[in-house]
């Protein structure tokens, strides 16, 4: 009973809109660079995804707390300073605890700062709404990014390396598909995912071209 009521509350709707219908990657087309670049291996995708979830959620909440004191014309630079502070935390954490993953991700961790999901959620939602809702909105959007990354990485690691989290899953005779691990394969994979997702979520088609 309580669970069914929950589905009609505002916080739940805010969360689920970001989580599914307005998927950050395929609906809002945000955060594409890192989606493609780090989704060739599952462990990279997990590290990057959790980093983005952390940064988006916390920074959305913080912007929401500060929203009465942020002057309108300086809000962009405020977003960037808040975001980069949290990105530095993620970067240092990865460097200290997972140096190998940190080396593989390279500059892409720093690029979370310009990942449009972060600024998109801050500008579109956190600056106008309360702390609790902003937290849920950030969580929903960034989790949609996270599962998109996981799906892409899952397929690409199996096809491209024949492994899953480093353990071999395909038989030796199965040839690895090198192109899928490179940028070229990433483009095609994302286009296919975009197609399937938009069809499944019954989104309005974009204009011709």
């Amino acid at each position, binding site marked *: 009973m309580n669970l069914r009521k929950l589905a009609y509350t505002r916080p739940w709707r805010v969360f689920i809109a970001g989580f599914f219908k307005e998927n950050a990657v395929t609906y809002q*087309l*945000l*955060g*594409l*660079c890192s989606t*493609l*670049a780090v989704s060739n291996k599952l462990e990279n995708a997990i590290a990057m995804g959790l980093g983005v979830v952390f940064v988006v959620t916390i920074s959305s909440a913080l912007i929401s707390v500060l929203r009465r004191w942020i002057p309108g014309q300086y809000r*962009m*630079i405020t977003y*960037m*300073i808040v975001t*980069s*502070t949290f*990105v*530095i935390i993620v*970067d*240092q954490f990865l460097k200290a605890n997972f140096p190998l993953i940190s080396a593989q991700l*390279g*500059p892409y961790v*720093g*690029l979370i*700062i*310009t*990942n*449009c999901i972060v*600024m998109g959620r801050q500008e579109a939602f956190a600056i106008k709404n309360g702390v609790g809702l902003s937290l849920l909105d950030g969580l929903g959007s960034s989790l949609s990014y996270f599962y998109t990354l996981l799906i892409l990485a899952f397929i690409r690691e199996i096809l491209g390396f024949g492994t899953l989290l480093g353990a071999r899953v395909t038989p030796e005779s199965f040839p690895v598909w090198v*192109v899928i691990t*490179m*940028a*070229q*394969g*990433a*483009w*095609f994979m*994302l*286009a296919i995912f*975009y*197609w399937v997702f*938009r*069809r499944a979520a019954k*989104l309005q*088609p*974009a*204009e*011709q*071209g």
Partner: protein
Amino acid sequence: MLHPLIILVAAVFTHNIALSYLIGMCPMLAMSRRVDTAAGMGVAVTFVLALIGPLNWAIYRLVLVPTHSEVMAFLVFIIVIASAVQLVEMLMGRFFPALHSSFGVFLPLITVNCAILAVSLFVMLREYNLWQTVTFSIGTGIGWGLATTIIAGIRERLQLVGDVPADLRGAGITMVIAGILALAFIGFSGMVAIQ
């Protein structure tokens, strides 16, 4: 040590930032509707990169490394980028109004173009010297502009034919075009080799 000119060629063709590092894609998808917009944005990005790449290099080498505050690099880079872009826009509006009206509209968008920040991060990670930084920055700008302009050209033609599946229209088909273009760019590989 790599010769600066090799880095320039690599940044434009073999290691194109948009096609092989997948950086700067959000503006690429948004700006590649028309050839003239794409080319204008390419020029603006190249100009800003030529300014910011060496600037961030100097700040990193001369301020952050001697004071052992490399941790602050992300924060410093993004503040430098945001303020330099603002400054360029103001100066251009004051002294070159004609130039400002033709591609000044692109300038504010550049702050959130990840290619700009990525150049500073790559320079930091690969420990380039000043000349390598200059050619890498300019090459990256040209490479990004080139890829975006080619994609815009293909999209313009595609609009005339226009028989794209409904759910793939817009960004979806642009990703496919970029993928094919990236495959074509493999043809350049072997010309020069950097890491």
